[in-house]
């Protein structure tokens, strides 16, 4: 009777686990995408402001006005959205308008290129009119807080035939956003004075008149485009590479630090182990994400390297704990005694005799660890302290879609689901590997 080798047995057991197979397929797909990312997605960073925020599989016809509106100011109003009435606003020395406001509606003073001034009341398309001062402003709920917002006076008009609107040129210089809008509509920049966060809102303003020229259909991207017209599908593929890279390197760093420390603590025990346990107690007192945030915050220049350091520092104690536990139980076996009897050094026993026996939990834990690292990187990038734009990372993509959370959900929804699927895949694979490698192993 022919017996399977250990490897074949493991593979057979793994393939019986249906969810693990799903996980393997997704992980292989992810690896292939990462390897061929440059061929599949050669231009992830090319912006096309004529084609911003196009939903998946949708063709958008675009019209652009010939009349170029040079500059405009806006004043905030209270009252119903349809008939706004003016409340106070303060213009600072810098020419910025500082307004504390509780309501909705906007009026725009337009200075066209020939110097003509006009005052155009306008409402935000998605706001429902209401008589109450505290209105139903949907995505602009923050407006109703008493918090003071610094509003920048760069506001332009544009109009696009189709569902979404976009600027033709935008440059952020210092505190100001310099934009050129040839189309009609309203865009405004809100700066939260407490967080200094900038958010750009675009709204249609159909009541503005302009001479329009059709510039024809825009490309039909598979998964739509983001706020600056970059192809979401291409950015996802490039983001896969970044995520996998972060996941694997962070895991390697954790293993490199965690295995020796865990092994030494577990093998020698006693005082060394005691010190180690106190140290991990301390490390576990910091919630993982918070510690990573704190570490990231002290770096002046944030790069992918600092993410490796921050996340590696967070994860290694977990690995060390697992390895320590393994070494404590393994060192009691006869084969260790045998190795010692033939004169093996402690180092040799630890590396040649014990380490191969801990391979199963290392593999299982690494698979699960990659999932956590991918999730953490996305979290850091979402908070704006991870991968720096324009490098496409799934977390950064969601962060960029955050300003259009409600009017263009595809920008964040697609990378969000991709993260969830990849994390699930790694977890399925980890569970499957655990069952296959050692049915009794409990982590």
């Amino acid at each position, binding site marked *: 009777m022919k017996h399977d080798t250990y490897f074949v047995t493991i593979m057979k057991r793994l393939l019986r686990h249906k969810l693990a197979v799903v996980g393997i397929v997704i992980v292989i797909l992810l690896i292939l995408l990462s390897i061929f990312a440059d061929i599949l997605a050669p231009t992830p960073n090319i912006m096309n402001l004529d084609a911003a925020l196009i939903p998946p599989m949708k063709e958008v016809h675009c019209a652009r006005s010939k009349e170029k509106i040079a500059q405009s100011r806006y004043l905030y109003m209270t009252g119903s959205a349809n008939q706004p009435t003016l409340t106070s606003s303060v213009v600072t020395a810098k020419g910025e308008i500082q307004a504390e406001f509780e309501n909705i509606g906007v009026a725009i003073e337009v200075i066209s290129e020939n110097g003509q001034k006009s005052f155009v009341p306008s409402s935000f398309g998605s706001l429902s009119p209401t008589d109450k001062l505290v209105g*139903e*402003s*949907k*995505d*602009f*709920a*923050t407006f*109703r*807080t008493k918090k003071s917002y610094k509003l920048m006076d760069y506001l332009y008009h544009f109009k696009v035939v189709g569902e979404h609107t976009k600027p033709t040129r935008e440059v952020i210089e210092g505190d100001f956003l310099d934009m050129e809008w040839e189309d009609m509509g309203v865009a405004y920049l809100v700066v939260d004075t*407490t*967080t*200094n*966060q900038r958010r750009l809102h675009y709204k249609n303003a159909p009541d503005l008149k302009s001479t329009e020229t059709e510039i024809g259909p825009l490309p039909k991207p598979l998964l739509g485009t983001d706020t600056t017209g970059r192809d979401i599908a291409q950015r996802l593929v490039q983001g896969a590479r970044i995520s996998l890279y972060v996941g694997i390197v962070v895991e390697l760093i954790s293993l490199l630090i965690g295995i020796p420390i865990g092994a030494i603590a577990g093998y020698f025990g006693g005082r060394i182990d005691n010190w180690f346990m*106190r*140290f991990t*107690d*301390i490390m576990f*007192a*910091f*919630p*993982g*994400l*918070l*510690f990573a*945030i*704190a*570490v*990231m*915050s*002290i*770096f*002046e220049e944030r790069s992918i390297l600092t993410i490796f350091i921050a996340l590696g520092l967070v994860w290694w104690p977990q690995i060390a704990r697992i390895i320590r536990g393994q070494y404590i139980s393994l060192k009691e076996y006869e084969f260790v005694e045998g190795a010692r009897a033939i004169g093996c050094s402690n180092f040799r026993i630890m590396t040649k005799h014990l380490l191969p026996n801990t391979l199963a939990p290392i593999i299982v834990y690494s698979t699960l660890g990659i*999932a956590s690292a991918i*999730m953490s990187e*996305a*979290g850091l990038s*979402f*908070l*704006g*302290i991870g991968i720096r734009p324009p490098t496409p990372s799934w*977390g950064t993509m*969601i962060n960029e879609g*955050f300003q259009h*959370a*409600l009017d263009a*959900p595809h920008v*964040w*929804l697609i990378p*969000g*689901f991709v*993260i*969830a*699927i990849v*994390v*699930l895949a790694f*977890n399925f694979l980890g569970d499957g590997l655990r069952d296959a490698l050692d049915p009794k192993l409990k982590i």
Partner: protein
Amino acid sequence: MINYLIRRLFYLFPVVIGVTLITFILFLVVPGDPVRLALGQHPNPELQKRIEHELGMDLPWYARYGRFLGKAVTGDLGNSIRTGEPVAKIISDRLPATAKLAVAAMIFALLIGIPAGIMSATKQYSFWDNAFMTLSLVGVSMPVFVLGLIFMLLFVSVLKIVPGSGYGDGQLIYLLMPTLTLGTIPMAMISRMTRSALLEVMKSDYIRTARSKGLSERVVVYKHAFRNALIPIVTVIGNYFAGLFAGAIITEYVFNWPGIGSATINAITQRDYPVVMGIVLFIAAIFVISNLIVDVTYALIDPRVKLK
């Protein structure tokens, strides 16, 4: 019991020292001089020296650590270098919003998680069991911020129940989305834990005895099995209560919730290191204390846990 408590508190001591030391080291390696940062481009050298002396920055690191520790013990975590406000005040101002959110999220997690877990365990492999377990698996794998944005889309855009994100002057409806967002992961963990703990207990001999005595399934599940299944559940609850504060960082950021989490992000973007470190220390302290409470509760509800 008292003895056990004292011993546990004693074990806490090195952890607290370590946590403060690591926080302090992080603070030490901060690039750039915070005094220069606060004084602007062209500081008066004399003024700078005086402030540095007042802050004790001319002392060696161990002396500074001593000062830092001494002050931290009395609740003085330093001042913000942006606003000059005491860090302790920033934390106490922001704490109510975060605490409100954390408690609401935990209540949500318990109210849904435990019944879902019991239902899944008593009707194993039924439709509801599969539905709950799949949902909780997806809930755990979905990043918190994506979950938050999905709830925002659902409640603000589609259902139109909630006016929007933000604190809304404490109106309850504004609590809905952040609560669901923050509570989903603990809810999923609690339901999975309840299910597996209950399944484990249901296999034991005394449950068979209870059934053979002719007790109703209800009594068997709730009076006999659930009590013993509570032990691992309490651990998960305790761990997650500690973790909630960290999880609140992302949730508060997504919903513009004026709690400790959003204060952390503000402080980081403004490079206000004393505030960052103060908050890190505060959250770590909460974490340590919650873990202590979990261990003590553990010993209280399970007489088998030896108070060694």
